[in-house]
């Protein structure tokens, strides 16, 4: 630095050098000024820069250096003192800042260096994370594939669909060249190629099951890499140059319903496996990755489960179809049975009707014949005819009753009847037969036995008659005793009738009838058979019985219907029998009412007091007709009033008249209208006399009219004595008679 001294620059010699210096200084200054600019620019651009003040410092340093060099430009030539001072100042500042910067850099540079190492470290970390990320993504994708595949597989219960879907999806996910499933044949000795990915219908291509490669796969829980040349893997014709891709095989357990125990998981001791073979595309140099193998294993398990579900479903479907078939068959059978029963009942009803009609004709005519004058031989013949036809009629009734009893369609006719007279009648019916055999029959009615009872009189009589009849039949000598009493609760319960629970009540009582005989007795072993129908014991005594075997069976059913019990005891052969019948009967309210005596059917026509004192009213405007009717009714013992006009009729009629006979064909009087008036006059049924219409023709119109006005009966004129008698008894018994011709 030349201060105050004006040394002449030696321009010509050092001019070039000077010039170079000048230019360099200029460029240095330029660079020095532009560097901070650049720094500022780029730092501004970057978001993070921790050392801003360092930058400032550095910037200052550079700027000052630049300034120094710039000022240097002026010092090449003669310069004033000011320039020198400025130069000095600049240099001083520059020196200060530079030193400061130098000192600072000592601290900063290690920091910067460590930043670098950190950066490297982070980069490595980032790379590692990326790798892991890739792995997770792959795994997640695999999981997604598995879920999707499982969903596909599980969404169907059809076996073929399951397997096909598996192969297709696996092929797609893993981009396989070929995927195949080998199923064991029925014999279990071979594996048959069942499904492939690309061949539509693989022809039955089989390999024996005991190949080593197959055994290796079956014994391994997971996937096994196998050679592309093994028989199970040779699925596509290898066209020479291709390098076949890697092949992997996995076993698929085939589970059955029996494999699933309730408490255990299915044990894979099933021994039946299918083989799934997967081939990577050839010439691809792809390798099986772990996650792919895991995917394959999982899929194989899922397929096994899905197949077992499908199998279970198939089995249950088969069972259900079988049940449905059986149900239909049963239904048909039941309907057939019902039809058969209906047909049988119809047949029986028709046959019985057909059989009964001539039967009745025979019985009726024979009984009529009996009433005429006959020689003794003729009378005996007629009696035999009558007895036989009655027997036959009874048999026909029995058969019909039995069939109705079996169906449960028989209903008891509950009426009020005289209990005492029932037994007396049984007694009188049995006595003749018994006396022929020189047997004595004693009847003992208990003192507290009600006179009247409510029940089915006819069938009770039938039952008692049957039992007593049997006693008589099987007794050769000795006596038969019939004891009738009201059963008390203790005597009702019998150890022989475990399912008989008599219930005591105020409306009912249990009647107990005990029939003891001193006859041939019954073998105790045969007793249960007695009540089965058509079963006959083969002992000698019964050989001549001629019974159909139905009697006791029917009795038992009647007794059951009457909520009772019947049984027979015997001490053995030759020691007699005791038959006990218990039935439930109702108490009757009318204890002491004097009922009209039942007109016996087989009586000669000289008896007058059929209906003694029965008040009857006859209305007829025809004199002859009226006289004839009067004669009839007087003959039958009625207390008769007759009128011939409607005014007289309405005047005379009263509650006392039990029966009214009115001609409905009178031209001048409307009999029907009168009937309506009677109904209006006597509203209560038991006060009103019974109205019977007499008519000359029995057409539908007349019958309908009669029913319409409330007539209790219709009779066709002219009426015979017997007809009138039966009409009256029918009316009095049942309070209704419809149609007597």
């Amino acid at each position, binding site marked *: 630095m030349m201060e105050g001294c004006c040394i002449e620059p030696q321009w010509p010699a050092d001019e070039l050098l000077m010039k170079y210096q000048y230019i360099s200084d200029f460029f240095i200054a330029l660079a020095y000024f532009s560097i901070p600019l650049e720094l500022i620019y780029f730092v501004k651009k970057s978001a993070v820069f921790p050392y801003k003040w360092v930058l400032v410092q550095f910037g200052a340093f550079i700027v000052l250096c630049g300034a120094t060099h710039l000022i240097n430009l002026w010092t090449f030539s003669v310069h004033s003192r000011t320039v020198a001072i400025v130069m000095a100042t600049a240099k001083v500042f520059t020196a200060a800042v530079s030193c400061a910067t130098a000192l600072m850099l000592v601290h900063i540079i290690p920091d910067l260096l460590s930043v670098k190492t950190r950066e490297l470290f982070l980069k490595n970390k980032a790379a590692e994370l990326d790798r892991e990320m890739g792995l997770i993504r792959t795994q997640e994708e695999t999981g997604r594939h598995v879920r999707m595949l499982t969903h596909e597989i599980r969404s169907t219960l059809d076996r073929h669909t399951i397997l096909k879907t598996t192969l297709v999806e696996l092929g797609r996910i893993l981009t396989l060249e070929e995927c195949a499933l080998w199923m064991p044949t029925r014999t279990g000795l071979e594996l048959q190629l069942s499904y492939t990915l690309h061949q539509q219908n693989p022809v039955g291509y089989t390999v024996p099951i005991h190949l080593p490669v197959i055994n290796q796969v079956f014994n391994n829980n997971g996937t096994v890499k196998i050679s592309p040349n093994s028989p199970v893997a040779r699925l596509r014709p290898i066209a020479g140059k291709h390098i076949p891709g890697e092949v992997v095989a996995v076993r698929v357990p085939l589970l059955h319903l029996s494999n699933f125990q309730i408490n255990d998981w299915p044990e894979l001791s099933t021994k039946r496996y299918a083989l799934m073979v997967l081939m990577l595309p050839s010439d691809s140099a792809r390798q099986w990755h772990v996650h792919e193998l895991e995917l394959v294993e999982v899929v194989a398990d899922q397929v096994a489960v899905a197949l077992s579900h499908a199998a279970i479903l198939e089995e249950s479907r088969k069972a259900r179809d079988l049940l449905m078939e059986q149900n239909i068959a049963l239904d048909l059978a039941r309907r057939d049975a019902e039809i058969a029963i209906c047909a049988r009942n119809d047949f029986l009803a028709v046959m019985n009707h057909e059989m009964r009609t001539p039967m009745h004709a025979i019985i009726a005519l024979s009984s009529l014949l009996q009433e*005429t*004058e006959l020689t003794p031989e003729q009378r005996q013949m007629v009696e035999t005819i009558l007895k036989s036809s009655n027997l036959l009629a009874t048999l026909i009734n029995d058969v019909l009753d039995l069939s109705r009893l079996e169906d449960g369609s028989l209903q008891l006719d509950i009426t009020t009847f005289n209990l005492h007279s029932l037994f007396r009648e049984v007694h009188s019916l049995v006595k003749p037969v018994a006396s022929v055999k020189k047997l004595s029959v004693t009847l003992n009615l208990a003192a507290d036995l009600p006179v009247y009872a409510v029940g089915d009189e006819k069938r009770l009589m039938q039952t008692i008659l049957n039992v007593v009849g049997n006693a008589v039949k099987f007794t050769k000598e000795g006596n038969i005793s019939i004891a009738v009493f009201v059963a008390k609760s203790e005597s009702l319960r019998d150890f022989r009738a475990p399912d008989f629970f008599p219930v005591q009540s105020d409306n009912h009582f249990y009647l107990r009838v005990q029939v003891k005989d001193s006859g041939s007795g019954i073998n105790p072993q045969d007793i249960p058979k007695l009540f089965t129908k058509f079963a006959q014991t083969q002992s000698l005594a019964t050989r001549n019985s001629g019974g159909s075997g139905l009697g006791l069976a029917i009795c038992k059913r009647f007794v059951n219907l009457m909520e009772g019990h019947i049984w027979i005891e015997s001490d053995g052969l030759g020691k007699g029998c005791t038959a006990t019948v218990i039935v439930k009967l109702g108490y009757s309210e009318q204890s002491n009412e004097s009922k009209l005596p039942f007109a016996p059917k087989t009586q000669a*026509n*000289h008896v*007058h007091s059929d209906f003694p004192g029965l008040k009857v009213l006859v209305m007829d405007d*025809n*004199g*002859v*007709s009226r*006289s*004839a009717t009067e*004669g*009839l009714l*007087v*003959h039958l013992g009625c207390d008769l009033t007759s009128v011939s006009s409607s005014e007289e009729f309405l005047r005379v009629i009263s509650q006392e008249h039990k029966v009214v006979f009115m*001609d409905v*064909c009178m*031209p*001048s009087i409307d009999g029907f209208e009168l009937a309506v008036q009677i109904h209006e006059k006597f509203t209560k049924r038991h006060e009103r006399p019974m109205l019977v219409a007499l008519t*000359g023709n029995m057409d539908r119109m007349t019958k309908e009219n009669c029913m319409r006005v409330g007539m209790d009966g219709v009779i066709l*004129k*002219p*009426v*015979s*004595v017997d007809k009138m008698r039966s009409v009256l008894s029918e009316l009095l018994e049942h309070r209704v008679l419809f149609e007597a011709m």
Partner: protein
Amino acid sequence: MDAVAQWRNQWFDYTHYLRREGFLDDQFAQLKKLQDENSPDFVVEVVSLFFQDSEKLLNNMARALEQNVVDFKQVDACVHQFKGSSAWIGAMRLKNVCINFRNYCEAQNLEGCLGCLQQVRQECLALKNNLENLFRLEQQIVAAGGSIPVME
């Protein structure tokens, strides 16, 4: 006794004849049954009543049929009554004629009605004679000490 047996035989023959010819049917036997100690003349009474009634009815019918404008309904009513009565005493032939008569009435056939009326009169007369004979026989039997047989 001989006479009684003879009368009885005659009675039997006569009743058989009446039955065969259709003059009487079973209803008559029924009527006979009603005859007993309490009403010994029941049959005779009824028969007499019948013939009295029939006189009246026949006169009514004749008068009705002689009118200019014949009231067939009235005639029909009479015939109906007549038929009923005949049926009660078992006069079968009479009853059948009455049925024909009613048919003509319904058809309003005057010729037929008149013809039937004539028939009815004839039958009535015949029946009356027959029954009188029968009753006379019975009286003779009773008078001779026998009992009237039961009609079958």
